[in-house]
């Protein structure tokens, strides 16, 4: 009797766990010619399409995707942002059983339960194939109703195309990191600026600024490594001169699924005449935010809802951060609507000394590696050039100290707000979560010296200028938007519901984003991938990664297989993301919910940075399990004594 009950139970359990249906998809990878700029070039297509075909899945079902490689070299498909078993992740060299990817002529069957919903994408996990077109959207329909309504949806997939071989582009960058930058500051600019300067003091400041940058041997115009000099920016594979058309009927609510599938390009997206209501970030529902513009970092996705009411054309403009081109598509009521002219470019940003004002927070924390690591030569810029006139004698320590006070204030204030929030009647514990979220930074103090609160985005709200010099806010983007326009910041991202996994972190490790602008070397903690050790996390822990960006570039950091939760001061409402952008010279704390065993890729999603070595194995082991494996590069097993 008991046995029967047991069997019945087991059966019931199986039934409830096993996905009901299987979605079957067949994909074939093939090289085909495309002609973007008047020359036939070899693209990598999926089922003959460039970019690849959209895959539509349903939450709760099982996905069965067979990928056949008809290329002459090994390839792979990685399901970006999907939570799945490590063996199905599609990262050659990481995913067990997938060490070489999919060889020519071979078929690999991916099979995984679909446990989430939202907008994602898939792509080859190597620079060459991805840059040449092996990327496409994934849309997963939610099992229950979405927490928002729309009448129509469109995918807006942003990307770039280059006629050059991606390997050649990388070599060009290695030979000359400014190879694609045709917007350096020139003598002509200097004369113009001096002429415009109102007085002698301003002119001296201009000269001083030039001298400072020269002394630092850094280029303030280095906004993007690869620019419109070689890239054509695309939306859904269409060039801006011949944009695609997304149909709507006036009065409809249109969901746009924005995906940045660019290899290197940050896009500033706006739709003149329409407000965008952001309802999802990286596939996860957020409390809707109405914005005028948003910056989409490489590999991020955002879902926005727009309500075009008029019977006219609305341009969806995506301007690369360095303003060297356009990506655009349009919402229109008919396919044959005439193509409207593009607006003039926004001013091109230049880095300022504030962007260089490194706020490292307390460094020298645990790196999560089995052995201590030492920076390779040339990975950290000598910052001697930073102590000069424009800083007016403010040394870094002082800056930090000054920033600490108001940040602390902000924290107190926030804590007060939450603490006094009397939600006794609500009785669902959201207040507890919020309180925990705020408790976390305080705990950080116990882990390391200094005041981590100064460095987290959550504490930066009241950072405003000190002595006219503010450190750059780690999550606010200056898109050049007109005054009054609202630009999305990470701080606006709040989960729709309090995160059930929200709790204080168990451990904090430091991930410095390092590199050499002159050599085009990119690394994490001063070691390129092939000489680095894995970062080891324990299954079940909540691991806080303190990202410290020591470079001048933005880095969209991507972790496979698990969610990252940036600490934005939103407590239990901090969003779950698969890509977290780390702005130049800033620090951001990001918690990882370590719930997936195996080896996972952890890297900068700028593909040329990844290819140059900005990547690690993120190894999740059960407590007590040995962490070393055959995969560990030999060099990493160096004799101890490299302690610092």
């Amino acid at each position, binding site marked *: 009797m008991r046995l029967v009950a047991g069997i019945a139970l087991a059966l019931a359990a199986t039934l409830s766990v096993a996905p009901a249906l299987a979605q079957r998809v067949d994909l074939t990878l093939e090289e085909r010619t495309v002609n973007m700029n008047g020359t036939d070039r070899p693209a990598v297509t999926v089922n003959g399409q460039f970019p690849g075909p959209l895959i539509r899945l349903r939450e709760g079902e099982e996905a069965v995707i067979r990928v056949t490689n008809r290329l002459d070299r090994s390839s792979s498909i990685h399901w970006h942002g999907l939570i799945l078993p490590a063996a199905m992740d599609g990262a050659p060299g990481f995913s067990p059983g997938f060490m070489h990817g999919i060889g020519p002529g071979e078929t690999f069957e991916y099979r995984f339960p679909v446990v989430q919903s939202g907008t994602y994408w898939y792509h080859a996990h190597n620079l060459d194939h991805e840059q040449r077109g092996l990327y496409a959207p994934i849309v997963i329909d939610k099992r229950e109703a979405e*927490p928002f*309504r729309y009448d129509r949806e469109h995918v807006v997939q942003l990307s770039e195309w280059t006629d050059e071989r991606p390997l050649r582009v990388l070599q060009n960058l290695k030979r000359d990191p400014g190879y694609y930058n045709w917007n350096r500051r020139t003598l002509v600019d200097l004369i113009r600026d001096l002429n415009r300067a109102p007085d002698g003091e301003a002119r001296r400041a201009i000269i001083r600024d030039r001298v400072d940058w020269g002394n630092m041997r850094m280029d303030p115009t280095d906004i993007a490594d690869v620019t419109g000099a070689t890239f054509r920016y695309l939306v859904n594979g269409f060039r801006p001169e011949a944009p695609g058309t997304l149909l709507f009927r006036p009065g409809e*609510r249109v969901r746009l699924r924005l995906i940045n599938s660019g290899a290197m390009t940050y896009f500033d997206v706006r739709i003149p005449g329409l407000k965008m*209501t952001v309802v999802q970030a990286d596939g996860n529902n957020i409390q809707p935010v*109405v914005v005028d513009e948003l910056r989409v970092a490489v590999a991020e996705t955002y879902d926005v809802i727009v*309500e075009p009411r008029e019977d006219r054309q609305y341009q969806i403009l995506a301007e690369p951060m360095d303003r060297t081109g356009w990506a655009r598509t349009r919402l229109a009521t008919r396919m044959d609507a005439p193509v409207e002219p593009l607006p003039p470019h926004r001013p091109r940003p230049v880095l300022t000394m504030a962007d260089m004002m490194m706020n490292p927070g307390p460094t020298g924390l645990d790196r999560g590696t089995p052995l201590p690591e030492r920076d390779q030569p040339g990975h950290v810029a000598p910052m001697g050039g930073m102590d000069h006139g424009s800083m007016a004698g403010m040394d870094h320590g002082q800056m930090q100290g000054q920033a600490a006070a108001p940040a602390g204030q902000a924290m107190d204030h926030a804590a007060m707000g939450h603490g006094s929030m009397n*939600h006794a*009647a609500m009785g669902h514990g959201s207040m507890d979560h919020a309180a925990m979220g705020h408790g976390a930074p305080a705990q950080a103090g116990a882990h390391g010296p200094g005041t981590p609160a100064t460095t987290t985005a959550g504490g930066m709200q009241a950072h405003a200028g000190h002595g006219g010099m503010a450190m750059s806010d780690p999550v606010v983007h200056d898109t050049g938007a007109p005054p009054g326009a609202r630009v999305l910041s990470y701080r606006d991202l709040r989960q*729709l519901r309090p995160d059930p996994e929200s709790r204080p972190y168990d451990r904090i490790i430091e991930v410095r984003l390092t590199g050499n602008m002159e050599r085009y070397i990119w690394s994490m903690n001063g070691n390129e991938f092939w000489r680095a050790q894995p970062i080891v996390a324990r299954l079940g822990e909540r691991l806080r990664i303190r990202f410290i960006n020591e470079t001048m570039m933005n880095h969209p950091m991507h972790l496979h297989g698990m969610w990252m939760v940036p600490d934005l001061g939103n407590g239990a*409402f901090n969003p779950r993301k698969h890509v977290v952008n780390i702005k130049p010279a800033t620090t951001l704390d990001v918690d990882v919910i370590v719930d997936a065993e195996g080896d996972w890729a952890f890297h900068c999603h700028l593909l040329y940075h990844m290819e140059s070595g900005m990547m690690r194995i993120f190894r999740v082991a059960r407590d007590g399990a040995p962490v070393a494996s055959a995969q560990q590069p030999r060099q990493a097993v160096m004799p101890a004594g490299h302690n610092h």
Partner: protein
Amino acid sequence: MDQRPFALGLLVAALLVAVLETGAASAGSAPAEAGAPGRRQEARRTVEVVMRDNAFEPASIQVRAGETVRFVVGNRGEVVHEFNIGTPAMHEAHRREMQQMMEHGMLTATGMNRNAVHGSHSEMAHDDPNSVLLEPGKSGEIIWRFPRGGTLEFACNVPGHSESGMVGRISFAR
């Protein structure tokens, strides 16, 4: 240092006044455009409205010209929602106020922050007769006498909610 709470208090007070005035104004102008608070004994019909996270059930409501309806509204979501009857312009104005309340911490994702509005006024902060603001799990009611016609919507004006679809049409049966 000490000025901060004071300044915040002032700001809050100013916003409150703004909210109350608009509330009064909209209530005042309601008979002409959106209707007016109704009396319980006049309400012949009760409509149950369920608010989930960023959706209404039902998605649209039909009323008769001049009818008084009792709405029983329940928030079954996990964040704060509002049921508000008005013209699109009234909603638009109210949305801006709610946005400001949110930005200044008076309104959080899960409810009114009573301390931020200094207790005594908190209950008044959102008691326009044409709307009810409900924390998760709460319910409330509105008795509303509709005009003879016009363009009316019911909406949740918590920032982002109506924009993402938490808005419905009120149509007049002939």
